[in-house]
């Protein structure tokens, strides 16, 4: 069957007189993982509950296979979907009985249900825990059982509400990889709610960015991450080294801008005189010793800057810079040592024109206070 598996049309959700979700249109294509990315409280979980028919919207419709789902059809369709949440939410019985439960609910005989459930427990590496009670499982094992329980149904749409978030990194990444392999192997359709942009990029075929109950951008993961539609999206997806400037001219897909008195080039097209934001991923900004100014480099832009602050960011260092405007770069600790980075030091910040994504300013954020955009 062609066309998207599921879609939302003009969906509104209100709690009291507060509208928590307003989605004009969103589709879920067959066989894809759609990542719903947004900060806490953006309405991601609400959207997932609407899409998986666990909650009815105040207005609008949920469509499956082109047919709007009415209240009467909701239970029948809900049986074709499954969700896995942040907590394993297992019942107080054995891992096997838990994994077999959804099949039993659908009238599958016990032996058959347990045979199929065991196959999924095996696939997820917890068959050895089949006879253990849920309470005696570790967090990672319990989440694997929870995932097996949802997968055993072979649902047409799998809803995942941050199921990997509570796991420690040692068990999170293998489980993400195994899930991805399973999803590819079976061409499963899944909607993954996450506030973790690395997870959205890693697992999502497409990413839908949700901000304050509205879809801010929907597109292929690579596009959303490199060409954010607004400053807010840019900050959310990690393109949060943002420079402000004025377009001086453009040609051959290349813009020349004035940024705090420096000439900067970026890939894009905007009219001359337009105020613009340049969104950069801080990992795309590299630092050179100040002495190398003027040396030709494959990076198109060289900005003299001063190191303001060094902040540890996991295995990396985030270097806050002042180049007339604030900028930041992510560097590895060895390269920071090699450069002898310290606060107050002069450096050159370089980045490729293709790494800088220009947005017109004001950048698609009418709700932002207008006074911020006065020159």
């Amino acid at each position, binding site marked *: 069957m062609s066309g998207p598996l599921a879609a939302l049309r003009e969906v509104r959700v209100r709690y009291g007189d507060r509208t928590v979700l307003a989605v004009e249109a969103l589709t879920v294509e067959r066989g894809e993982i759609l990542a719903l990315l947004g900060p806490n409280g953006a309405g991601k979980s609400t959207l997932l509950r609407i899409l998986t028919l*666990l909650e009815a919207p105040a207005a609008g419709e949920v469509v499956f296979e082109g047919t709007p789902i009415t209240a009467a059809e909701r239970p029948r369709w*809900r049986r074709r979907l*499954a*969700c896995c949440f942040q*907590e394993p*939410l297992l*019942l107080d019985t054995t891992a096997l009985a838990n994994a077999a439960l*959804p099949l039993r*609910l659908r009238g599958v005989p016990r032996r058959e249900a347990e045979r199929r459930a065991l196959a999924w427990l095996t696939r997820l590496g917890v068959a050895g825990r089949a006879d253990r009670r849920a309470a005696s499982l570790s967090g990672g094992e319990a989440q694997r059982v929870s995932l097996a329980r949802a997968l055993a149904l072979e649902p047409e749409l799998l809803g995942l509400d941050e199921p990997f978030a509570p796991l420690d990194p040692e068990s999170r990444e293998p489980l993400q990889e195994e899930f991805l392999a399973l999803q590819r192997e079976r061409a499963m359709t899944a909607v993954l709610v996450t506030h973790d942009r690395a997870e959205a990029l890693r697992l999502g075929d497409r990413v839908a960015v949700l901000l304050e109950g509205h879809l801010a951008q929907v597109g292929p993961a690579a596009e959303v991450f490199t060409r954010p539609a607004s400053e807010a999206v840019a900050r959310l997806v990690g393109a949060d080294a943002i420079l402000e400037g004025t377009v001086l001219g453009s040609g051959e897909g290349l813009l020349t801008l004035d940024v705090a008195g420096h000439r900067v080039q970026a890939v894009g097209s905007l009219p001359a005189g337009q105020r613009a934001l340049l969104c950069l991923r801080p990992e795309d900004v590299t630092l050179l010793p100040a002495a190398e100014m003027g040396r030709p480099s494959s990076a198109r832009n060289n900005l003299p800057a001063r190191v303001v602050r060094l902040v540890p960011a996991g295995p990396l260092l985030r270097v806050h810079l002042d180049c007339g405007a604030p900028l930041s770069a992510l560097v590895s600790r060895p390269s920071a040592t090699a450069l002898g980075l310290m606060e107050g030091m002069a450096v050159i910040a370089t980045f490729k024109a293709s790494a800088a994504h220009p947005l017109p300013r004001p950048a698609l954020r009418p709700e932002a206070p207008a006074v911020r955009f006065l020159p």
Partner: protein
Amino acid sequence: MDLIWQGIREALRLVLTGDPGVWQITLLTLRVSGAALLIALVLGLPAAALLAFGRFPGRQVFASAVNAGMGLPPVVVGLLVTILLWRSGPLGFLEMLFTPSAMVLAQTIIALPIVTGLAMAALQALNPRLRLQLLALGASPVQAAALLLYEARGALLAAVMAAGGRLLAEVGAVLMVGGNIRGLTRVLTTATVLETSMGKFETAIALGIILLALSFALNASLTALQQRGRRP
């Protein structure tokens, strides 16, 4: 002290010789309270699920009424059931007054709020997302309620113990609607009242000991069930 020793010896004699009068009273006690408890469970557990998870107008009022009803004075229940079943009352045509059925009805009214209230509290003490998860795995609301009741089984057994103990010990309502008729509606509590008032302490003590033993046996077996497989 002599009185008590005599009572205990008499009690042992009555129990060991299988005194038909005592047996009959004991069995009736178990039948009446057991039936009332069973009916209260059949009605109370679905009601508890509805009150715990349902969204309907008046839910709060119902829940408050159930909680208030947990302390219902048995004599008030006895009065109510007596009036209902009185020859000229609304249910008088049933001719149920002074029968074991009337006693079951009165005791059901006493047990129902206890079972419902404690089961509702037990369901609401579960992780609220557990119900969402069950629905998200395709459970119907009824299947989800049944699974959650089973998940709360430890607390539900406590509810059964609370209600069962209350019914076995209850005397006011069964006396009023049963009438303490020998061989027909006499139960352990009403018989104890009668024997004591007649100064026949040996028999009264014997009946009291049987009552205590029943209550202990009920609670011990349910506690064993509740604590099974549980290790600190």
